[in-house]
């Protein structure tokens, strides 16, 4: 195949992938800005001819948007804070020490991550119902720890291992103890990984659906994801402009955060795979 033709084909395929990946997101955002008549016209309007913010005001004034947003922030904040502290300590143990029971611990956190949420939610519901913790945000925080904590331990372990042993040893040879070497050398180097893992934990908790859907039935106690899933979205004659505005609002914090950490997380999930 001539080089020029091959080049063109490759670029065209690249363009196709680009369009398929971007178009749904583009369609969400543009729909959110289109006036109602442009949304329901027989021939789609490919961009908003008369952009409007009315759907966004509709969305934030509907139901318990602000209440649910606050709930999401409370739950996610608590989950991230608690799990990062616990996970960091455990990850250091896994990455820097050999000890009896280490293998069992690794097996434990890997298998836990495979437990389907649908399986766990059944006993959690029954147990929480017994202690009247259904419809409580605290109950949700506890259930979120079940998937955020193991993930955070495993990901952080990957980041800590990535730090060259020589750096740490050099610090110790300089006359510092292990703890000092740790704080001086390890912590600054691992900080980006720590931030990345925290952000990814945030995203996971923010996006979670099953636990929140089943455990929180009180409308005032729901999270933003549940709000969005039920937002005018289940009948014909749905106000799609408002739904897409709500969807855009729900996605924005995640997208922004994700752009920051994406490259690190892709690495964290498979860290050590090629070497191992």
């Amino acid at each position, binding site marked *: 195949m001539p080089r020029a033709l091959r080049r063109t084909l490759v670029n065209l395929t690249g363009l196709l992938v680009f369009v398929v*990946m971007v178009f*749904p997101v583009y369609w969400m955002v543009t729909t959110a800005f289109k006036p109602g008549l442009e949304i329901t016209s027989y021939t789609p309007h490919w961009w908003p001819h008369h952009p409007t913010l009315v759907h966004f005001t509709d969305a934030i004034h509907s139901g318990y948007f602000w209440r649910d947003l606050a709930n999401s922030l409370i739950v996610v904040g608590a989950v991230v804070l608690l799990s990062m502290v616990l996970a960091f*300590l455990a990850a250091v143990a896994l990455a820097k020490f050999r000890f009896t029971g280490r293998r069992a611990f*690794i097996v434990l956190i890997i298998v836990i991550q495979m437990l389907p949420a649908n399986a766990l939610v059944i006993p959690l519901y029954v147990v929480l119902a017994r202690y009247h913790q259904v419809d409580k945000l605290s109950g949700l925080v506890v259930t979120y720890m079940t998937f955020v904590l193991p993930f955070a331990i495993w990901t952080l372990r990957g980041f800590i291992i990535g730090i060259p042993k020589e750096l740490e040893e050099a610090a110790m040879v300089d*006359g510092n103890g292990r703890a000092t070497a740790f704080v001086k050398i390890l912590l600054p180097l691992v900080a980006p990984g720590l931030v990345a893992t925290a952000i990814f934990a945030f995203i996971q908790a923010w996006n979670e659906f099953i636990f929140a859907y089943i455990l929180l039935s009180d409308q005032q106690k729901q999270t933003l994801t549940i709000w969005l899933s039920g937002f005018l979205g289940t009948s014909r004659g749905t106000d*799609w402009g408002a739904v897409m505005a709500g969807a855009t609002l729900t996605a924005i914090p995640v*997208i922004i955060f994700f752009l920051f950490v994406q490259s690190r997380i892709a690495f964290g999930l498979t860290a050590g795979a090629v070497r191992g």
Partner: protein
Amino acid sequence: MSSTGHAVGAAPSGPLRRHRRLERARLAEGSIPYALIAPAVVVIVAILGYPVYYLVRLSFEHYGLFQLIAHKGQWIGLKNFTSILTDGQFWHVVLRSVLFTAANVGLTLVLGTLIAFLLKELGRFMRMLVTAALVLAWSMPVVVATQLWLWMTDYQNGVVNYLFTKLHFGNFIQYDWFANTFVGFGVITSLIVWGAVPFVAITVYAGLTQVPAELLEAAALDGSGAFRRFRDITFPILKPIFVILASLSIIWDFQVFTQPFLLLQQRPDPGYWLMSIYAYEKSFGISQYGLGSAIALVMLALMLCVTFFYIRQMIRIGEVDR
């Protein structure tokens, strides 16, 4: 783990004293990892141990609404399991889930790998553009993407309906995508694959950049075609990555719930029941928590079998301590 660092740090004041200090240091060092993992272990056991124990116990009990109010199940032995395993519907659900998982995982891996190779071929600018698009799609929350898919396939104004009709794939105006389960699963699959491909593509691409170019060039000079180079050089090097990606995809797709559940307006009919929806319908739909637990356990057992190699690989990775 060596303690040479401490030996250097210890003051040399007589061989015996030094020996004792070393011993103490070693003991202290030995307990550090346990102190570090203790909080995490305590929390995991507390928040997971009990529910998992309870899941198993529930699967041996009759636990309906009455029992939920009375806070006490009724022991019925293996009856939940026998009633599932002899239920024709259960086997349909298992088969449907397996086929669904195979299709989704297969498509995700193949398309992801192809896009990874495409990224390698592309020039700098186009590669950046496509990567940005991948990351954008990857970052979309599942519930957001599901609402978006519902809108794009809307009965009245779905843009996909319009495009498919314009492209002469048939008449999709006022077309109900979920009337036919095969088509409906196609829509569900498109959503899942769209969301999952970026992770695979970007990870495989990162792996591809690690494959030594000299090896590939040498093979090309020897006259190996692109497929042989992939089979004999690239694939073996990337195999651990593929094992992990395949296993994660299987884990995610076999227990998928949110996408089909929400696309089907939160009340999927039995033709759409996958394992997770089946467990949900039995436990929360008709309040048979014991039966639902038994289904969940069978689902978990199936998953553990399929992902055996993944677990082994991850443990191997964990064993490498630096």
